[in-house]
């Protein structure tokens, strides 16, 4: 079976195709893989599979189960970086199909692992296979959307990447509803939930793969004329992915993304205990869970809002806002905590997390501006390694510094102040990286090989 319907040639849109069909196709994929943010809903039930309701000595520990998500995020970064060029060559439909297969089968292999109580099968299933599905799925619609929306690249990619933030809003209650439905006197219902979610997500992602189309090479939006004098950072040329990562601009943007994500992810990972400890006793566990939910909403909304805004004020200015406003808000947060203003504190972190999401959603359009559209998906894939680094750096910074502070005798309510001030420092580093951004030197531009060079290549091969 050749699966030729997945070929790039078969996905070229016919004349009259409505380009607004592509964002929901991308959303179908991103809403599915965004489930990863809600994986923690399975953590406790996975530690009670043998004990059934409480952890037995032979049950897995929380630390062991925690590795499943960490492995998935590492493989997200690795697969996005490794499969980016392949994705550009084969097109979005085959990439989305592969992502659906990996993500869906990741759940199935994990379900077998739960049935046999073999943890390594969950590491392999959700961690490795699922992680590859996350990485390939994340980058699969990006360059296609940028090609469909040359007039609004920020809005288009923001809409898709918003789905990754929104996926958790669906997955968290869905997992709880399913586990509740399948729970019996002898089972936590996790096995059946994994199977059902694997099937649902595979189908949902396949809807995206079926609908997605690439524009014809000469297509452009009706009545749209490319600006005669684009902004000085915006190029009309292209940079090859293998050349792009050797430019200073790639590493400056890597720094921009890494610093923005480190600051945000550190807070997200500790949001619930942080608000409870800072407002000692005034914020209950249930209210803290509400705070986490609210942050998820702003994480999602910020992706669309900031990426769309960047189409009007420019990518560089958008990140300037993230860093400068971020520094101000992180600096103010401990003061708001001391003043005892819960609503002001929540508002500050809602804006901070909206900019964390906005950082993810605006970066593809920034890459398009700097490196052109030719390999933007593959370059984006390589840049996502910054996410993997930030995913470790952010929580480690917050956790270890907090523990050190408490061990030094500082009250719990004040233990986060130093961490939040360190976050200001990280954001300042990101600000400097963004400030240093200049247009790529024209010597890095991609040029079609001349006819003579092609002949030489053919003769050699």
């Amino acid at each position, binding site marked *: 079976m050749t699966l030729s319907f997945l070929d790039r040639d078969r996905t070229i849109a016919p004349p009259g195709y409505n380009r607004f069909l592509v964002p*929901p196709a991308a959303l179908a994929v991103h809403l599915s893989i965004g489930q990863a943010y809600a994986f923690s809903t399975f953590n406790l039930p996975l530690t009670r599979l043998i004990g059934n309701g409480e952890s037995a000595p032979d049950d897995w520990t929380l630390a062991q189960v925690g590795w499943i998500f960490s492995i998935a995020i590492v493989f997200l970064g690795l697969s996005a970086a490794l499969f980016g060029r392949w994705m550009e060559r084969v097109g979005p439909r085959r990439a989305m199909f592969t992502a659906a297969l990996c993500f869906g089968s990741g759940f199935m292999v994990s379900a077998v692992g739960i049935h046999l109580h073999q943890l390594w099968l969950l590491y392999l299933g959700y961690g490795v296979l699922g992680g590859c599905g996350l990485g390939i799925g994340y980058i699969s619609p990006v360059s296609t959307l940028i090609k469909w929306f040359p007039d609004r690249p920020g809005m288009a990619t923001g809409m898709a990447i918003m789905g990754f933030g929104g996926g958790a809003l669906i*997955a968290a209650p869905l997992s709880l509803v399913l586990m509740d439905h399948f729970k019996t006197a002898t089972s936590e219902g996790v096995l059946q939930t994994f199977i059902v979610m694997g099937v649902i997500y595979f189908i949902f992602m396949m809807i995206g793969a079926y609908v997605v189309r690439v524009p014809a090479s000469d297509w452009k939006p009706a009545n749209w004329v490319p600006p005669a004098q684009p902004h000085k950072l915006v190029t009309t040329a292209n940079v090859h992915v293998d050349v792009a990562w050797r430019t200073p601009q790639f590493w400056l943007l890597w720094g921009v993304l890494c610093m923005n994500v480190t600051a945000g992810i550190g807070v997200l990972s500790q949001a619930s205990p942080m608000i409870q400890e800072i407002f000692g006793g005034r914020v209950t566990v249930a209210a803290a869970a509400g705070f986490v939910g609210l942050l998820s909403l702003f994480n999602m909304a910020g992706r669309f809002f900031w990426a769309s805004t960047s189409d009007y004020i420019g990518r560089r200015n958008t990140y300037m806002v993230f860093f400068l406003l971020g520094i101000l808000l992180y600096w103010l947060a401990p003061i708001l905590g001391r003043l005892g203003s*819960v609503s002001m504190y929540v508002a500050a972190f809602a804006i901070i997390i909206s900019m964390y999401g906005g950082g993810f959603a605006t970066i593809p359009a920034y890459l398009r501006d700097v490196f052109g559209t030719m390999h933007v998906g593959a370059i984006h894939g390589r840049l996502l390694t910054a996410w993997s680094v930030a995913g470790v750096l952010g929580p480690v910074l917050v956790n270890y510094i907090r523990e050190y502070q408490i061990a030094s005798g500082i009250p719990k309510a004040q233990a986060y102040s130093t961490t939040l001030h360190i976050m200001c420092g990280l954001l300042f580093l990101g600000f400097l990286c963004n400030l240093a951004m200049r247009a790529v030197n024209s010597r890095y531009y991609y040029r079609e090989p001349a006819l003579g060079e092609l002949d030489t290549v053919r003769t050699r091969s």
Partner: protein
Amino acid sequence: MKARLIILWLIVGLPLLWGIARTLANSMKLFL
């Protein structure tokens, strides 16, 4: 094409709205 567009947006939009509504309902506990 228009019907296809509406159906597709409903397929992705309805689960998202359901998730947003559930999350908002939980978030209210912060202020109540």
